């Protein structure tokens, strides 16, 4: 019996794999160990679905565009967890659009903690993104350490709807602590790692659930020909932690989940929605856009 197994290519026992995954899941969620004693019915159901739903209780928000929501393994933007946004000034816009949507999750009145070093936040500007400025508590840190501490303190108090921090350097342990705090208390943490004018090239945080890279893209000229159109961004989903945890042998749909993808999106200031702009609709800017994404 054992001789036949040796000649076959190595294929892990699905039951063992399932048990191991649940064990990891239990460690990550600090869940009681009894989750390991699964009965047969549980084991039969779709692994990924069980994994996703048990991990996040499927609390997500929509980004407004079906394509982007569907590309995320949670089928939407997960509320609990840490997310990282790189890029230029457009990263601020994307983060603000996220925060505006997150601010409406907890009864609409839960405050937002905004941690940064500079004093350049403008109330009227926040309103334009659909954020109520009176909901925002600003923390002016002297350095990254202060900001990381303030973010963690914010993520640990469940009264907030979102914690956003503008940082230059995130040590791996600090990132992990933030992620744990965010997951335990059901608060969204956003690491905004961009400054206007220059793109920050810093080591990303491994602990974050998603990593985005957002760059400005030329907008379309409005129909009447003068003025500015809706802002366009090159949105790139660089990484999803769920995809790294999933093994091979999934069906095709699950394989595409959480894979690096990019879209050119248009942000609508009236609805706060993102919409995916059809590719190649504006031939003249296409080569440049490819360069920016690549």
């Amino acid at each position, binding site marked *: 019996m054992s001789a036949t197994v040796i000649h076959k290519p190595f294929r892990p026992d699905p039951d063992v794999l399932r048990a191991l995954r649940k064990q990891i899941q239990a460690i990550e969620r600090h869940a009681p160990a009894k989750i390991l004693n699964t009965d047969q019915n549980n084991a039969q159901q779709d692994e990924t679905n069980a994994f996703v739903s048990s991990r996040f209780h499927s609390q997500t928000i929509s980004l407004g565009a079906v394509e982007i929501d569907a590309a995320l393994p949670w089928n939407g933007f997960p509320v609990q967890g840490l997310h990282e946004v790189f890029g230029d000034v457009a990263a601020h816009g994307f983060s603000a659009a996220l925060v505006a949507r997150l601010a409406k999750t907890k*009864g609409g009145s839960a405050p937002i903690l905004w941690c940064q070093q500079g004093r350049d936040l403008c109330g009227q500007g926040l*309103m334009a993104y659909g954020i109520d400025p009176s909901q925002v508590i600003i923390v002016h840190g*002297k350095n990254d350490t202060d900001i990381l501490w303030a973010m963690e303190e*914010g993520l640990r*108090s469940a009264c907030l709807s979102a914690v956003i921090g503008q940082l230059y350097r995130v040590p791996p342990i600090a990132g992990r602590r933030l992620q744990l705090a965010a997951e335990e208390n059901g608060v969204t943490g956003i690491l905004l790692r961009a400054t206007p004018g220059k793109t920050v090239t810093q080591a990303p945080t491994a602990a974050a659930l998603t990593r985005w890279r957002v760059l400005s893209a030329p907008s379309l000229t409005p129909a009447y020909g003068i003025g*500015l*159109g809706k802002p366009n961004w090159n949105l790139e989903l660089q990484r999803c932690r769920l995809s790294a945890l999933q093994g091979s042998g999934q069906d095709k749909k699950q394989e595409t989940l959480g894979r690096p993808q990019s879209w050119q999106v248009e942000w609508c200031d009236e609805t706060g929605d993102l919409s995916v702009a059809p590719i190649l609709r504006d031939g003249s800017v296409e080569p440049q856009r490819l360069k920016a994404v690549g």
Partner: protein
Amino acid sequence: MAVSPAAQREGVQVGQSLADARALYPALTVRHADPAADLKALDSLSAACERYTPWVALDPFGGGMGTANLSGAGLWLDITGCAHLFRGEEALLNDLFHRLNTSGYRARAGLAATAGAAWALSRFAAHEHNPSIILPTGQNITSALASLPIDGLRLDGNTVEGLERMGLRKIGDLYTVPRAPLSGRFGGAVLRRLDQALGTLDETLSPRRPCPAFEARLTFADPIRRREDIDAALTRLLEQLCTDLERATQGVRQLVFSLFRVDNIVVRVQAGTSRPNRDPVHLAHLFQEKLEKIDPGFGIDAVALAAVETNALTVRQVGLDGGVDNTNRENTAKLVDRLGGRLGVGRITRLTPAASHLPEQASQEIPASGAPEVDCKDWTGPARRPTRPMQLLVQPLPIEVMAPVPDGPPVLFRWRRRQHRVRAAEGPERITPEWWRIEGDNRDTRPLSNDVRDYYRVEDEDGKRFWLYREGLYHPGLPPAWYIHGFFA
């Protein structure tokens, strides 16, 4: 002028000329009087005395005494209701003397039912061999003071001299003198001081620091040094204080934690809250960061926790639905306290709208602790359309601009050594200065048109959006000044 005990043994006396003193003892060390340092030392001594009572005052009577061996300065301690904490008045005084002697002070004390009597006793009844005089409550002040010299009444030198010329040398002599001629001759001061000393007239002294309405204290048999012990003491004090506060339906806004070190130095730690609070756990949390920096020296033998500022805080009933809104607001206040405790209250801010149409003044930051609740409706101006950037530069930065027409949008601008070619522009939005705010002088010298700003939202070839403005109206021959003021995403 003062003479040390060692010098006294050599025969040097107060009031001697320096040449005489040097003749008696050639190696005499002479120091100039330093009243400022004396006052500072007295001040720190008074802080150290707050371990006995919160009510400590500097003696307002300074100098002017007939006899030169009294510099006149001293400390008042009102120990009403405090003596039993130290097992009686005598034990308290012994403790005080022990403490002062070990730090190198020689002191004399008088303890009596009235401030005036205590003053007289400490200065004229106490002497080197018996430095503390206690006049127990109920004992006759009149007879105790009768034999003391007239100086004991806290009178100025001229009055004392005049009284002595009349043969009134002791306080007891005044008891029998008719009152009307006395006040007619020397003014009301003599009789007022006499009555105050005897207790027939009230006397109010103001303490050095305001006495808190709510205070908890703890003294230790052995000095503590370890951080855990300080934490435990703080917890006990907080529990005591919060029980008192609850009884009075008050909440803390400002707390002062005083640590009395063995070497008579007082370390004070403050903590503030953004909303009245009396939750011991939360308040203890506010001190955590600050206690780490404390230097306990040779040990701390007493601690006091005072609620310096309190506001009414009634017990709130939690609604049947859990009262989510209220608890959330309280949790937010607690978070603000914790953040402010470590980073500084000024670093935690909220945005508030201001009545100004200048973009940099329309949105202002105020400290989040104690900030009034601002409603979304208070924010006026462009609601959804992004006409104001999210990031507004505190100071607009000058840029180099190429514009085809002097009052049109730019086609090219240079910022941070990078050239941006403008693809599309929107504007201008003209923002004029607020003439009603300009002070009188400036109005005439600087024309308003110089400060007019024409704002443009522009997008460069990469799709980056900027908020630029041109300052001033167009004048032929003058290149217009352009600035960058913000970034749109």
